C-alpha cells in the first residue's frame, strides 16, 4: 500500500512551526505563537497514531484466532525514498522508514513532546523569547523525527547532529547567563566527540558494506550468517562512542548535569525522554551489527552498568533538584545500555518508553515546584509542599514510585526484564545483575530522599506563588502520571512480540524459567523497599542524621558532592593542554598573519616612498620622464612591428651616398 507518502508529514509540521515561530514569532501575538508551537507536534502525533494504529490493526487482523499481536504478516516497513546522493559508488537516499521500532519511538517523541509543549505554554508564560523557545522546540522535534524515521546512517546522522544543535540552542536559551552559555557549549562539544566516533563508524560501515541503508545492510548480513569479523567489532565500538556521547554514558556524560541550565521543560523533553535516548535507539536500530560482535556487546553492557552505578552514587548527595534528576537520567540510561549489552533490545526500548513517561513527569513536576518556589532549586530550602501543591505532589509520587520499581507501576515492568536478561548471561551477567540491583537500591533511596525533602517536613522557605498552578501545566502532569501508573501493563511479552521483526536478537537467548524470574523480581522489589525505608529513616524520622553522617565521612561526602571531580580532571587533562596548545598555535598564526600584514604594509609604504620622489614638482624631471616614456613607447611599437631589429649596430652600412 502506498500510504507511505504521508511519512514526510511527520517532520514537516514541526519544521514549519520552527520557521513560522522563528521568523515571524516576535511579531505575532502570544496566543498564535503558542497555537503554532503546540499544533505542530499534535499534527505529527495524529499522523503517527494513524500509522501505529494501522500497523496494530493489520497485525491483529492477520491473526484473528490468537489473542496476541503477532508480527508474521505485518508489512515489514513502510518506506518513502527520495534520491539524494549518487557520487560514484556511494548511493544514499532520503529514506524514511516506519517500522515497529520507529513507530514506538515516534509515539514517545511526538506524544511526550506534545504534552511538554502544552506544559511549556504555562511554564514559559512570563519569559521573554517565548517565540524563540517554541521555534527551537519545534526544530528539535523536526530533527528528532528525522533521526527516528531515517532509513540509512547518513540521514540518521543528519538528525543526530540536528538534535545536538537544538539541544545547544535550548540549553543556552537564557544566553545572558554565562553558566547557561557555557553549558550549551559543553553539551555541543562533548556531543561532538561522540559524533566523531559515530562518523568513523559510518565510514567503516561504508567501506565494509558499500551501502549505508539499514535494510540493505540487513540483507547483506542475512546472506552471510556466520560473519563475525573484527571489522564488525570496530564498527560497533565506534558506534558505541557516538551513542555514549549522545546518551551521556561514561566517559562522555559530563554535559548532562550542566544541561540543567536550560528551562525545565527542555530538560524534560530533551534530556530525559527523547534526545538522550537516541543512543539507545541507534543501538537498537543497528542491533544486527552488534549481535555479531560479542566483544562490543559486553562493552556496551559494562559501560551501561558502570554508568548506572556511578551516576547513582553521585545522585545520592546532590542538593539541586534538577541535578538529582539529571544523574538519575544518566543512571537509567545506563540500564538501557546494559539491556542492549545483553541483547535484550526490546527490554531496552520498553524501559526507554517507560522512563520517558516517569522521567518527563518528574522533570515537569520539579518544574512546577521550582515555579511555585519562585526559581528556587535547592532541596535544602524546600519542604512541606505536600499540602500546598496537591496535584504536583500526587503525580510526582506516582513517578517516584514508578522509577523505584514498585509494582504495579511502570518501572517494575520495564526494569525487571533487564535484570533478568542480565542474570542469564553467565557469571559476567550475574555481576551485571548485582550492579543493577545495587543501583536500584540507590535509585530508590535518592528518589525518595528527593520526595521527602521537597514535600514533607516543615517548610524551610516561603512558597512564592500561592495560586494554584495553571491548567496547561497540570493536565500534562496528570496524563503522564496516569501513563506512569498504567504504562507498564502492556507487558514485556506483548511488547517484545510486537518489536520482534526489527529488534529480535540474532542469536538465541538463553531461556530461563518463570520461577527464577519471579524470585528475581521479588528480590528487586525488596531492594527498592529497603531503599525507601532508609530514605524514610534519614529524611523523615531523623532529619538531622544525614548531616551527621556527612560529617563522619567528610572526604567521601565531598568526593560524591563534587561528582568525583570528573569535570576538574577533564579540565586538567584535556581542556587545559588543548587551550595551551591552541594559544601556542594561535600565537604562531598571529605572528604569521601579523608578518604577512606587515609585509604588505611594508611593500605599500616602500613603494609609496619610492614613488613619492617622482612627484617632485620639478618641471625638468617631468620633462625627462616624458622623453623617456616617449622613447620607450616608440621603441616598443617599432619592435613589435618588426621595423626595428636589435642587431642594428651590426648592420649599419654608413651613409647611403649615391
Amino acid at each position, binding site marked *: 500500500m502506498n500510504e507511505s507518502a504521508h511519512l514526510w508529514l511527520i517532520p514537516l509540521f514541526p519544521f514549519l512551526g520552527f520557521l513560522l515561530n522563528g521568523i515571524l514569532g516576535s511579531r505575532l501575538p502570544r496566543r498564535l505563537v503558542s497555537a503554532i508551537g503546540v499544533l505542530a507536534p499534535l499534527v505529527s502525533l495524529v499522523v503517527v497514531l494513524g500509522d501505529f494504529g494501522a500497523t496494530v490493526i493489520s497485525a491483529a487482523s492477520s491473526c484473528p484466532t490468537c489473542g496476541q499481536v503477532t508480527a508474521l504478516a505485518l508489512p515489514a516497513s513502510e518506506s518513502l525514498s527520495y534520491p539524494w546522493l549518487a557520487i560514484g559508488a556511494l548511493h544514499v537516499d532520503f529514506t524514511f522508514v516506519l517500522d515497529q521500532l520507529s513507530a514506538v519511538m515516534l509515539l514517545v517523541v511526538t506524544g511526550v513532546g506534545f504534552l511538554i509543549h502544552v506544559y511549556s505554554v504555562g511554564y514559559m508564560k512570563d519569559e521573554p523569547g517565548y517565540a524563540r523557545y517554541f521555534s527551537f522546540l519545534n526544530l528539535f522535534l523536526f530533527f528528532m523525527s528525522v533521526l527516528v524515521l531515517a532509513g540509512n546512517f547518513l540521514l540518521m546522522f543528519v538528525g543526530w547532529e540536528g538534535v545536538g544543535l537544538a539541544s545547544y540552542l535550548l540549553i543556552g536559551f537564557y544566553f545572558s547567563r554565562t553558566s547557561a552559555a557555557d553549558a550549551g557549549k559543553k553539551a555541543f562539544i562533548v556531543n561532538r566527540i561522540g559524533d566523531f566516533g559515530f562518523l568513523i563508524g559510518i565510514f567503516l560501515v561504508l567501506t565494509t558494506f558499500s551501502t549505508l541503508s539499514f535494510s540493505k545492510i540487513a540483507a547483506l548480513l542475512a546472506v552471510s550468517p556466520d560473519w563475525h569479523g573484527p571489522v564488525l567489532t570496530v564498527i560497533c565500538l565506534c558506534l558505541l562512542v557516538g551513542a555514549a556521547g549522545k546518551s551521556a554514558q561514561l566517559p562522555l556524560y559530563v554535559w548532562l548535569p550542566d544541561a540543567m541550565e536550560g528551562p525545565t521543560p527542555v530538560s524534560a523533553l530533551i534530556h530525559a525522554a527523547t534526545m538522550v535516548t537516541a543512543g539507545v535507539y541507534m543501538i537498537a536500530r543497528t542491533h544486527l551489527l552488534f549481535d555479531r560482535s560479542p566483544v562490543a556487546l559486553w562493552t556496551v553492557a559494562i559501560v551501561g552498568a558502570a554508568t548506572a552505578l556511578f551516576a547513582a552514587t553521585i545522585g545520592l548527595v546532590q542538593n539541586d533538584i534538577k541535578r538529582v534528576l539529571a544523574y538519575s537520567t544518566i543512571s537509567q540510561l545506563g540500564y538501557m545500555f546494559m539491556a542492549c549489552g545483553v541483547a535484550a533490545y526490546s527490554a531496552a526500548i520498553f524501559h526507554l518508553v517507560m522512563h520517558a513517561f516517569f522521567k518527563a513527569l518528574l522533570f515537569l513536576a520539579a518544574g512546577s515546584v521550582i515555579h511555585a518556589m519562585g526559581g528556587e532549586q535547592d532541596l535544602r530550602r524546600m519542604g512541606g509542599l505536600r499540602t500546598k501543591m496537591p496535584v504536583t505532589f500526587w503525580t510526582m509520587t506516582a513517578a517516584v514510585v514508578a522509577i523505584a520499581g514498585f509494582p504495579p507501576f511502570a518501572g517494575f515492568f520495564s526494569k525487571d526484564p533487564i535484570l533478568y536478561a542480565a542474570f542469564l548471561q553467565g557469571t559476567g551477567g550475574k555481576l551485571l545483575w548485582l550492579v543493577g540491583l545495587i543501583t536500584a537500591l540507590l535509585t530508590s533511596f535518592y528518589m525518595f530522599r528527593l520526595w521527602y525533602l521537597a514535600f514533607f517536613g516543615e517548610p524551610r522557605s516561603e512558597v512564592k506563588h500561592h495560586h494554584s498552578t495553571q491548567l496547561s501545566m497540570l493536565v500534562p502532569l496528570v496524563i503522564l502520571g496516569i501513563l506512569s501508573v498504567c504504562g507498564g501493563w502492556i507487558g514485556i511479552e506483548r511488547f517484545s512480540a510486537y518489536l520482534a521483526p526489527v529488534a529480535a536478537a540474532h542469536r538465541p537467548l538463553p531461556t530461563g524459567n518463570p520461577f527464577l524470574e519471579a524470585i528475581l523480581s521479588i528480590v528487586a522489589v525488596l531492594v527498592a523497599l529497603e531503599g525507601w525505608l532508609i530514605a524514610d529513616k534519614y529524611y523523615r524520622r531523623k532529619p538531622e542524621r544525614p548531616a551527621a553522617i556527612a560529617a563522619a565521612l567528610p572526604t567521601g561526602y565531598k568526593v560524591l558532592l563534587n561528582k568525583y571531580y570528573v569535570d576538574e580532571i577533564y579540565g586538567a587533562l584535556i581542556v587545559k593542554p588543548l587551550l595551551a596548545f591552541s594559544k601556542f598555535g594561535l600565537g604562531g598564526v598571529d605572528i604569521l598573519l601579523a608578518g604577512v600584514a606587515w609585509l604588505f604594509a611594508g611593500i605599500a609604504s616602500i613603494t609609496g616612498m619610492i614613488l613619492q620622489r617622482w612627484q617632485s*614638482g*620639478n*618641471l*625638468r624631471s617631468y*620633462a625627462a620622464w616624458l*622623453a623617456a616614456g616617449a622613447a620607450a613607447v616608440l621603441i616598443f611599437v617599432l619592435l613589435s612591428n618588426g621595423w626595428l631589429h636589435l642587431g642594428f649596430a651590426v648592420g649599419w652600412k654608413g651613409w*647611403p651616398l*649615391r
Partner: protein
Amino acid sequence: MSFLQHDVPISWYLFLSAVLFSLGVVGFLIKRNLITVFMSIELMLNAVNLSFVAFAYQWHEVRGQIFVFFVMMVAAAEAAVGLAIIIAVFRARSTLAVDRIDLMKL
C-alpha cells in the same frame, strides 16, 4: 660638375629633421629658462614640419603640406597662449627659472 648636379636624397632631409628634433628635446631638458624651454618646443615642431614636407615631396601628396599648414596655425595659437601663461607665471613667481617653479598652485 656631376657632384653639384647631384640630387639630395630624401632621407637626408629626414635625418636633419631627426637631428633637429633631438636637439629640441635636449634643449627641453637642459635649459633653465622657461621661455627657452618653450622655444625648444617650437624647434621640435619645426623639425616635424620638415619631415612632413619631405614626405609630401616623396609621395607627391599635397596633404602633407596641408598638415604642415595646420601645424603652423596651431603652433601659432599655442605660442600665444603659452607665452601668456609664462607672463602670468612670472607675475606670480617673479622668476623664470624652471627649477623654482615647482608648486602646482600659483
